């Protein structure tokens, strides 16, 4: 039995109580891979509404953050794409979902900036792009033009990790790391759902990816409760209808 010596280990129900109507919610994961299944289910079951969702994408309709979109819990999504979730496309079209599109690398760097206490970042991605550059401040440095992109933070960040110790130090699992270490830094409250909680000292300090100081609460995951897209279809690796 792991000692809860920092009081960070809480139940999924307790964790869900931090996510309330109208709050901004940042969720780790990329196409649903590395998103925290038990916390997302608890948020759905709790009936939270009017969320501002910040996530790499809107996942697939039945997995990751997809159900939050499909069940109309999100009023605004700040994401890099919605291509894998047709319901998000429908909701954008019929006006029940507001979407702020941000190029993927810019989005994740804005999240990093929010988590790192920066006031903004300078990027030349899309600096001459009529849609992306619209309304943004252009800053010239050494003769090069950059867009000022603003940091992103959230009331609550939820992430998925392989292991946590009671202080909240996290290690991840392969490509399920993706946006999680950045999202973990950017929450006013960060909650990590983990496969395994190990005793203090059990994680090699050299291997820790997210230092526990960024993590406020830890919950034990009940595991993935959805079917992955590749479990449902026989389509070969990476192929999707365009």
């Amino acid at each position, binding site marked *: 039995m792991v000692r809860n010596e920092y009081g960070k280990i809480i139940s999924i129900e307790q964790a869900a109580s931090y996510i309330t109507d109208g709050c901004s919610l940042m969720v780790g994961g990329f196409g649903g891979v590395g998103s925290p299944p038990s916390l997302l289910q608890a948020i759905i079951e709790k009936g939270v509404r009017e969320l501002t969702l910040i996530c790499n994408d809107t996942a697939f309709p039945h997995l990751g953050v997809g159900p939050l979109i499909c069940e109309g819990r999100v009023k605004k999504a700040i994401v890099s794409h919605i291509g894998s979730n047709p319901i998000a496309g429908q909701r954008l079209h019929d006006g029940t979902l507001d979407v702020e599109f941000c190029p993927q690398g810019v989005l*994740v760097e804005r999240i990093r900036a929010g988590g790192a206490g920066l006031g903004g970042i300078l990027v030349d991605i899309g600096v001459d792009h009529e849609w992306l550059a619209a309304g943004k401040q252009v800053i010239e440095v050494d003769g090069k033009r950059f867009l000022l992109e603003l940091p992103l933070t959230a009331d609550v960040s939820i992430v998925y990790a392989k292991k946590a110790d009671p202080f909240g130090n996290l290690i991840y699992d392969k490509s399920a*790391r*993706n946006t999680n270490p950045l999202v973990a830094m950017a929450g006013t409250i960060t909650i990590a759902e983990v496969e395994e909680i190990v005793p203090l000292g059990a994680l090699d300090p050299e291997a820790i990816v997210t230092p526990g100081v960024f993590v406020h609460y830890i919950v034990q995951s009940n595991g993935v409760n959805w079917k992955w897209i590749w479990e449902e279809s026989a389509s070969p690796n990476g192929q999707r209808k365009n």
Partner: protein
Amino acid sequence: MGRERIAKRAAQELMDGMVVNLGIGIPSLIPNFLGDKRIFFQAENGVLGIGKSPSKGKEDANLCNAAGYPVTVVSGASYFDSATAFAMIRKGLIDVTVLGGLQVSEKGDLANWMVPGKRVPGVGGGMELAQKTKKVIVVMSHVSKDNEPKIVSTCTLPLTARRCVNLIITDRAVIEVTDEGLLLTEVMAPYDVEDVVRYTAAPLRIAASLKRVE
């Protein structure tokens, strides 16, 4: 099949030791045509060194490509967060990216992310890849479903990035984007030069060394 043929031709552009990012759709077929070339495939979610697809039953839900499908990794692979993945891309460390396309202009402008009023999927990581990769190859059908040319003087669809495309590979032709405009270097049988010119809505120079590919 046209898609396989395009992928096979694109695979010839990838050289041993390159770092390559593949888009979804046709580009994802390219690894089937590489022979024993050693390529380090990068994915935006945070993997460098993607290998073959796992066999059925050996999939790992926590090891996927950027499209969400299971992959394996090769010796020397690494995992990292998505910000690091885009650091590699913005710093210009990706040798080649192969992307799908809706329209490419004679100047190499690329439109591949939205059709206003119809499909608004969002740009994903396409802008960074198109703008920052050393060599951008676009693979696509030569014409749209409505038989409209996709290679045009000026893109009418919203752009992903300007002047970014180096090479276009379609089911009918291979076209280089040069400072002097588009250069037709290969024609795919059964199509001939006339077909290609007729269905390309931009000026096309014909390479002296034009190749007909059976």
